[in-house]
């Protein structure tokens, strides 16, 4: 029998705990595939964060360290500074990176740490039960913004890719989405590009991946993908925000 599809060796056989329709699984698979395709699984140390992806250390098939809430870029810094020839990546959600860990993210980026950050933005806190995140959209209802996020009360959403791309230490920053197949293919290319950036020693790379949360959004999986397309993409425009490769070509 001819093999037409095989699961990537970049992931373990452990079954994930993610909710049906959540796109974390797709993002995990893309990262795993990139590590496998680049042949760097054995040279990689991943850093798991706190939130829905806290157990990602059981899913990625490489050495993994679990970090305190928001501190993954600092932990990754410690690893990378001791082992500059290894690949180091963090896998963080929006609460972890953009709220409690924004300082660590900004400073790792500013220092140009040669690490790769996979930033999963689904505009809500998932694991704790659907509270407002820094990336929650204006008007979006969550457990802690029950009347919809109100700018005068709760402030405005943070566009992390745009913000970090202003820092000279960053080398590659792209925002991608998971709401349909063409975008997923683009997302994988972006992740590959980010790890290639690290391989070449250019400095901080980040891929912001717009992701779904059917459970806490109160939508079914299909509606959730539409919600990304119709609500998140307009607020968080897709595209490359920083590209040191392109600058090098010039």
């Amino acid at each position: 029998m001819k093999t037409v599809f095989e699961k990537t060796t970049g992931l373990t056989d452990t079954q994930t705990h993610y909710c049906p329709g959540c796109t974390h699984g797709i993002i995990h698979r893309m990262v795993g595939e990139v590590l496998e395709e680049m042949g760097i699984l054995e040279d990689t140390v991943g850093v798991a964060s706190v939130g829905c992806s806290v157990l990602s250390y059981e899913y990625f098939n490489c050495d993994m360290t679990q970090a305190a809430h928001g501190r993954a870029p600092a932990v990754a810094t410690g690893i990378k500074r001791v082992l500059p020839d290894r690949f180091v990546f963090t896998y963080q959600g929006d609460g972890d990176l953009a709220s409690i860990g924004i300082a660590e993210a900004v400073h790792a980026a500013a220092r140009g740490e040669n690490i790769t950050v996979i930033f999963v933005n689904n505009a809500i806190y998932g694991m704790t039960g659907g509270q407002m995140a820094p990336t929650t959209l204006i008007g979006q209802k969550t457990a802690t913004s029950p009347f919809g996020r109100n700018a005068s009360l709760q402030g405005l959403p943070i566009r992390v890719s745009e913000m970090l791309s202003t820092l000279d230490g960053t080398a590659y920053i792209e925002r991608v989405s998971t709401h349909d197949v063409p975008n997923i293919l683009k997302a994988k290319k972006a992740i590959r590009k980010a790890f290639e950036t690290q391989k070449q020693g250019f400095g901080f790379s980040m891929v912001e991946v717009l992701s779904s949360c059917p459970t806490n959004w109160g939508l079914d999986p299909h509606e959730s993908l539409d919600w990304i397309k119709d609500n998140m993409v307009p607020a968080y425009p897709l595209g490359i925000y920083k590209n040191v490769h392109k600058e090098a070509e010039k």
Partner: protein
Amino acid sequence: MGKVLMKGNEVIAEAAVHAGCKYFFGYPITPQSELVAYMARRLPEVGGLFLQAESEVAAINMVYGAAGTGVRVMTSSSSPGFSLKQEGISYLVGAELPALIVNVVRGGPGLGNIQPAQSDYFQVTKGGGHGDYHTPVLAPSTLQEIIELTEAAFDIADRYRTPVILLGDGMLGQMMEPVEFKNLTERQPGEKDWTTTGTRGDGKPRIITSLELNADALEKRNEKLQHKFALIKQNEVRYETYEIEDADYIVTAYGTAARIAMNAINNARADGLKIGMIRPITLWPFPEQPFIETRDKVKGYISVEMSAGQMVEDVRLAVNGKAPVTFFGRTGGVVPTQEEIYEYIMKVAGGVEV
């Protein structure tokens, strides 16, 4: 290399380098900033790395990352900054990672001041962060002892896979004394089979984590930690005694307070009083044995601290009601003088109710 005159903060740094520590992540705070500056200059000379972090929180988490690769690594701070590191220390304990954390204590609470104090005793000996844990705490009282204990701290950290705290105060950090680094061969940690450095053909991926969602499994893991703490209690207690054989009263003090108290004790001895001293060197595990051995013979104990009375609670636990325990201390960065300690000793020994 003979004796050199150095500042306490610099002695800590150089001793760490001698112990094979090549990585330092820190943030400036008075009165320990000389330590940070010394490392920034010194570590590149030994092929190591110094990195100034954006905060104490980031620094301790960089230490966490580096410790996971198996190298000797440290950070240092003073009280307010040390509080910020507590989260990271709890994680280091939970994930069983070795590291050295230095606290050059200053007056508190809050921003307090930058004068010497011993008011972080509770924080360092009783856990400090969340969860059921202790960290070994070493408290040198001279600059020469800093060298010995900094090395011991790294060894204990590696032996038990635990963060270890070296506790000083502003006075110890700022003062100068002659020290000698004696023919030390650079110590290297032994083989570590738990590091995350990329699998590189050494089998299945490893995981460093303090998370265990299953209650029974977490309890098992905690039992393992408790067993480790029991071993540390059994093997690593350090203390010094002075003239306790015939003592009517025993003063107990650690760090710089012990040095000042020692002058007062000598003056009291010169006046014919039988006063001795127990100086805990490890604050956790607390040296209970010298108290157990003396508590039925002495008339009382006097705990002298630069705090409102913290170690005195451990003294009372060790004495277990067998003898009176009194306390003398100054707080807020006020260092007690030998004269006032002497007066207090005379009062207690003279039977005055205190």
